């Protein structure tokens, strides 16, 4: 893979590998816990075994592409064991689950090493040997006679067991079909959305494609036959699959049992705790892309309104009476705000639901690490945008895992230190001003040893802000510092990156021996943002108002150390300016972005980076407005300091700057 003429280096994907591997590890751990719980209930979970197998298989494939051999070896060994279990009907015994948890832990450890740019230790021979000598589990035990023959031949052993288990537990099993078409796709209905909708209300056993007569709008006539076990009503299943209830068939005619009577009841309105009567049809599942669409349309409206306002401004300057136009625009503005709020409401999910996976994570981590941890979730009724939630979860997983894996002492150590045996990890979430959320992940573990990190980083660390900066610098490695004693976490650069990508920020406080607390401040929604627009050099830029502490005048008297001029006439980026009696660093944004106009800057934006203010000079402020921000997802155009793009109403893309990131760049350059 490393021939000299190699044009593409797959090593570039290391960061993405870490992110995906961690998701897969979480899936594997969740499956293992599910399997373990089932063992306790004297039953099995064939589907969880399949999911475990797939997670391991994908980790193995990815690790082999990136060239992390020890992970390939462990994943391969465990995959072989789990595949055998899957082929035998999908059950694992307790001993196998135990060893699998250990092996997944060993993989996780090595993924972390990759994230920290440490050397990945070899796969432990003892572990590999133990996996190899572990028997998969007992052979399928549930009689499969109840499965109709036309399905029996189309299912794998594990799928047959899954189905037999459902039938035995008297969970209703249904068959239905979905026919993809251009018309369905245009309405946002695809096999993927149908699968997701059904997956949310039941367990899909199998989906099989079948040829049917092609309609005019497809190249190929295909129907998907779906087999699903679900307690949901026929109506709810039909709705999830975007089909008619008459097209959802029970797999076998069920013998009437008391449970069947209950089924009839569920067609009645169900009284919920919140007091609202929810009828099956009152809840509609909407795909996120459809809401995105709606929001895109709204963004165009908002942009055109801004343009209209400017045109009216021009008329007014020419001496025309624009009072009535103003009135209309004002009302339109209010309507747009209401519309925006309505769309936002539709995108909201409860933070409590978002935090749900953390419970499983902590259980499994504590288990494999030998710690005793109590997870406290406190989000009350706070809600946030689904799009933010999806991006935020990996960061929270990182922080919680760091806390459990690195910060928390073993139970005996804790007792010796006079702490409660069970450690506490707390995730709380509150809404703060300006449509932001503050999510705090705190632990009562050992805290971070600033001196140890300072030695490692070879630079003085005076406060928590500086400490966080060192911890989140991508190249920072603790190869020489035993992680267990430093209590420092992993992949912190990724956490900071996630926060800044969302237009938020990460801060931290830590006390040696007492614990660490990370605060993620993120917007409730990322689609629409309140920004300051300004001119710098020939270009307009915007920054979220939430990161700007204050806009100050730049006049000669306030500059403590004047904007330095290099010998070649360009301004040095780092100087000091007086603000409320204090000297704070001031950076010429133009110089930093290499588009300096040479004009004297008149205004400066002051931001707080982890508590420390820093000012950026700009040529001219344009205004404050609401814009829709598009994040730049393409890794090829991912430039540090650029958070996304937006449209100010002139149809041209305007860059949204990440001043936090630019502040760090400025400091780095200033230090050179």
């Amino acid at each position, binding site marked *: 893979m490393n021939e000299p003429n190699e044009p593409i280096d797959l090593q570039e*994907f290391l960061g993405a590998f870490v992110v995906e591997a961690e998701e897969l590890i979480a899936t594997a751990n969740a499956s293992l816990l599910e399997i373990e719980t089932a063992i306790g209930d004297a039953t099995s979970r064939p589907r969880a075994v399949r999911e475990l197998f*797939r997670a391991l298989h994908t980790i193995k494939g*990815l690790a082999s592409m990136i060239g992390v051999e020890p992970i390939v070896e462990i994943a391969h060994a465990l995959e072989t064991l789990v595949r055998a279990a899957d082929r035998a009907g999908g059950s694992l015994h307790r001993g196998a689950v135990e060893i699998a948890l250990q092996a997944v832990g060993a993989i996780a450890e090595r993924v972390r090493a990759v994230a920290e740019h440490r050397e990945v230790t070899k796969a432990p021979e003892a572990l590999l040997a133990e996996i190899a000598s572990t028997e998969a589990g007992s052979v399928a035990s549930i009689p499969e006679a109840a499965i109709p023959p036309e399905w029996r031949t189309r299912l794998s052993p594990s799928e047959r067991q899954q189905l037999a288990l459902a039938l035995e537990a008297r969970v209703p099993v249904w068959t239905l079909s979905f026919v993809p078409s251009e018309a369905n796709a245009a309405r946002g209905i695809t096999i993927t959305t149908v699968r997701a909708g059904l997956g949310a209300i039941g367990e899909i056993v199998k989906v099989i494609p079948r040829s049917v007569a092609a309609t005019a709008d497809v190249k190929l006539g295909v129907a998907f036959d779906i087999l699903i076990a679900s307690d949901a009503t026929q109506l709810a299943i039909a709705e999830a699959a975007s089909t008619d209830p008459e097209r959802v068939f029970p797999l076998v005619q069920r013998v009437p049992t008391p449970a069947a009577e209950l089924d009839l009841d569920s067609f009645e309105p169900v009284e919920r705790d919140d007091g609202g009567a929810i009828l099956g049809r009152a809840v509609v599942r909407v795909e996120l892309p459809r809401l995105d669409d709606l929001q895109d349309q709204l963004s165009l409206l908002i942009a055109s309104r801004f343009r209209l306002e400017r045109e009216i401004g021009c008329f007014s300057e020419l001496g025309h009476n624009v009072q009535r136009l103003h009135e209309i625009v004002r009302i339109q503005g209010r309507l747009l705000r209401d519309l925006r709020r309505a769309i936002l409401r539709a995108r909201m999910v409860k933070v409590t639901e978002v935090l749900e996976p953390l419970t499983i994570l902590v259980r499994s981590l504590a288990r494999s690490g030998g710690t005793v941890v109590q997870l406290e979730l406190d989000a009350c009724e706070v809600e946030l945008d689904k799009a933010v939630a999806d991006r935020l979860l990996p960061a929270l997983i990182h922080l919680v895992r760091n806390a459990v894996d690195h910060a928390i002492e073993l139970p005996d150590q804790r007792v010796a230190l006079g702490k409660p045996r069970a450690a506490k990890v707390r995730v709380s979430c509150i809404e703060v001003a300006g449509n932001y959320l503050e999510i705090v992940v705190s632990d009562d573990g050992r805290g971070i040893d600033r001196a140890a990190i300072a030695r490692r980083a070879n630079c003085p660390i005076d406060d928590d802000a500086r400490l966080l900066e060192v911890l989140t610098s991508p190249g920072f490695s603790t190869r020489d510092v035993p992680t267990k004693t430093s209590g420092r976490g992993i992949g912190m650069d990724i956490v900071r990156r996630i926060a800044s990508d969302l237009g938020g920020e990460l801060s931290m406080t830590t006390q040696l021996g007492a614990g660490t607390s990370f605060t993620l401040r993120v917007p409730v929604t990322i689609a629409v943002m309140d920004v300051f627009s300004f001119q710098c050099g020939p270009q307009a830029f915007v920054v979220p108002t939430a990161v700007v502490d204050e806009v100050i005048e730049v006049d000669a008297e306030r500059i403590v150390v004047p904007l330095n001029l290099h010998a070649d006439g360009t301004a040095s980026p780092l100087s000091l300016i007086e603000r409320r009696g204090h000297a704070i660093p001031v950076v010429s944004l133009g110089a930093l972005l290499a588009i300096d106009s040479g004009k004297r800057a008149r205004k400066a934006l002051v931001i707080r980076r982890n508590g420390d203010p820093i000012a950026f000079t700009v040529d001219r402020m344009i205004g404050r407005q609401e814009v829709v921000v598009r994040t730049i997802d393409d890794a090829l155009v991912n430039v540090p300091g650029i958070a996304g793009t937006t449209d100010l109403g002139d149809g041209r893309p305007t860059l949204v700057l990440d001043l936090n990131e630019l502040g760090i760049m400025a400091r780095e350059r200033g230090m050179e």
Partner: protein
Amino acid sequence: MTHVLIVDDSKLMRAMVAVCLRPLGEVDFVFAGTGLEAIEQLALAGFDLVVLDLDMPELGGLEVTEFVRTQDRLRGLPILIVTSRGDAESRARLMAAGASSFLEKPFAPQQILQQARQLLRSEAAA
């Protein structure tokens, strides 16, 4: 314009394959995360090449290949299977099912590029 369907349940794997195949020139990549999605894409649009992963939820690469070969319209569609299952049995079953070519993970970028070029050429010749 060459239309390539990349099917893999790993987002990263899809991205890597696309980066490897970018030198093909004017390529329109369509991604599918499951075998089901792949068949749906094939039903809705025409493709010149399918790069297919083997292990996916509900419907794996082998079943996708089998289904594709039952379709008259898709008989000549080149299918490049990418997998970390290198055993002879899997390979034989895949070839029997109608896979055009087979690539074992880990592969070098040039390997997949070369195989894709070859498959596209033979398709053009047919």
